[in-house]
């Protein structure tokens, strides 16, 4: 079976800093990582492949340096890496991104066999939209399974898959037909360490690099800025509140005294709260 996993190289957001004066992102020296949510998708794909055989192709769209993310994925055990990179993709919003990725998945299918499953993470840590997975599913006509916590059954002969997915207020168990798109929930598995042969192979493996034309994309008006219905008008830091926090005196005071002071001020600010707490404490 053929599985495609879409991943994204993202800045390690824990290390992003904002310039205090200009409010711009200071990118210098911020390391990049594979979007952590995508690793759950990659691991699930590798597990399925190990169980039933086949290949895992990892796909990413990004600048040339996104090749690093693919190489990491190969080192973890993926069979093939495809980098979709073209200046025409710059400025893509989620709709334009899903268009380009869907076209690339189509091309991957033509080249190495149509995938039974396309995986993505549930969202990225930089965009946090969770929109691209459903976008790819819709464009390719794949059955959409988002927030999947577990794959309960896979029958390649019948072409069916059963999953448990996070739903509102519970877990929904679904069955559907392949091909399907799965966005994988976090915490559902643990990414493996690559084997030594995989890591060695990854270092010298050839990454497939496609520009728009190579991926079979001809409608350039659907790509990048031109293909994006949304536009970011401005980026800004939130305005601080006019008044800063009222500070509780702490110097030379024991913690008990500070705590009493804090409690009194909380009740002074929220008189109704004290009454409510007392009612609750009294066992109502």
């Amino acid at each position, binding site marked *: 079976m053929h599985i495609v996993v879409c991943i994204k190289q993202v800045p390690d957001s824990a290390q992003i800093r904002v310039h205090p004066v200009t409010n711009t992102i200071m990118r210098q020296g911020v390391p990049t990582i594979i979007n952590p949510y995508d690793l759950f998708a990659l691991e699930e794909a590798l597990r399925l492949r190990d169980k039933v055989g086949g290949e895992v192709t990892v796909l990413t769209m990004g600048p040339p340096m996104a090749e690093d993310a693919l190489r990491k994925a190969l080192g973890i055990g993926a069979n093939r890496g495809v980098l979709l990179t073209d200046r025409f993709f710059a400025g893509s919003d989620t709709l334009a991104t899903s268009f380009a990725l869907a076209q690339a998945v189509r091309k991957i299918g033509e080249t190495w066999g149509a995938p039974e499953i396309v995986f993505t993470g549930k969202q990225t840590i930089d965009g946090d939209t969770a929109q691209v997975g459903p976008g790819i599913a819709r464009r390719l006509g794949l059955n959409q399974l988002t927030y999947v916590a577990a794959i309960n059954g896979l029958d390649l002969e019948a072409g069916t898959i059963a999953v448990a997915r996070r739903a509102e207020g519970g877990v929904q168990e679904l069955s559907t037909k392949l091909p399907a798109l799965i966005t994988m929930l976090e915490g559902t598995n643990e990414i493996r360490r690559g084997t030594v042969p995989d890591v060695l192979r990854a270092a010298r493996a050839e990454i497939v690099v496609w520009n728009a034309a190579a991926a079979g994309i001809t409608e350039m008006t659907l790509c990048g800025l031109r293909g994006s219905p949304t536009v970011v008008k401005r980026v800004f830091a939130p305005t601080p509140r006019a008044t800063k926090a009222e500070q509780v005196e702490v110097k030379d005071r024991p913690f008990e005294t500070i705590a009493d002071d804090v409690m009194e001020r909380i009740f002074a600010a929220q008189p109704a709260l004290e009454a409510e*707490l007392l009612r609750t404490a*009294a066992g109502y």
Partner: protein
Amino acid sequence: MTTPPKPAPAAGSRAGMKKELPERFKSYQHVWVFIEYEHGEINPVSLELLGEGRKLADKLGVELAGAVAGANREGLHAVAVEAFEHGADLVYVVADPILEHYRNEPFSQVLTELVNTYKPEVLLLGATVLGRDLAGSVATTLLTGLTADCTELEIDDDRCLAATRPTFGGSLLCTIFTLNTRPQMATIRPRVMALPPRQPGRTGRIIEHKVSLREDDIVTKVLRFVADRDSSKAQLAYADIVVAGGLGLRSPENLQHVRALATVLGGDWGGSRPLVQKGWMPADRQIGQTGKTIRPKLYIAAGISGAIQHRVGVEGADLIVAINTDPRAPIFDFAHLGIVADAVELLPALTDAFRKRLSVNRLAG
């Protein structure tokens, strides 16, 4: 798997980007809220969005409509009544046995068909697992713009929706427009908008829309639904009192002090994003932009620095108390009460203080 927002264009360049709206979209009018209705209940986020949608509709001088789909016609009519009392002027109701449980395929078809038939200019959905699953499909089918997890919605001078959301991992905010397509779609997380007051007796129009769906055409089947046990994690977003910890707690064991104070106060507890990333607590306890948004009466942040992504998740609290050893921590910029102290030491003292106060009064009472 998503794209970071584009950098802000230079000042003045937006006029060039904002082309005339194509003729076919000019008839798009009114503000819509997709109402989540499952297992016989309305998701509270839908009522919160009706409150916000009302403001947008008033500003535009148009009507506010709800759209709801399900199997039980009577239940759906009760939803409509609830929607009217929370600000809707009309509700589109789609009743069909196929819509008993949420599934992407039939719900996407229904919402897409409603949009194409009645043409709203703004469509809001909750940024829940259901709302995100649905919005992504529908926006792609309609080839229109969708902005996720908005924290603020405005109507600009050109009658366009200005959707503001955190960006770059929550370190900055950005305002996003949908230029030349309609509807302008946005998702908003639960508790980001305040629940509007109910107006008993307020009524509106119900418009029943028939769809022709056949179960045989829907390949995805629901095998089973296992409801969550009524655990506190479902209630964190709606708790009246929340105590949360951050990296200032220094070790995962010290989260016990957060839980202890929350217990004494009869509230719930959570933490900032780094605690999830470090594996100190499960993701459903995370408070902030990418976790839960809360609007409690009292929020106590212990050892949390207050990055923007955290701030947007707690700003709706009535009273924010911050404990941090760093007097320059950004949390003091938006907290109401600040204590420059070690949370690990102060939390147990606070727990004792509240416990004493509440138990003394119980004896006295």
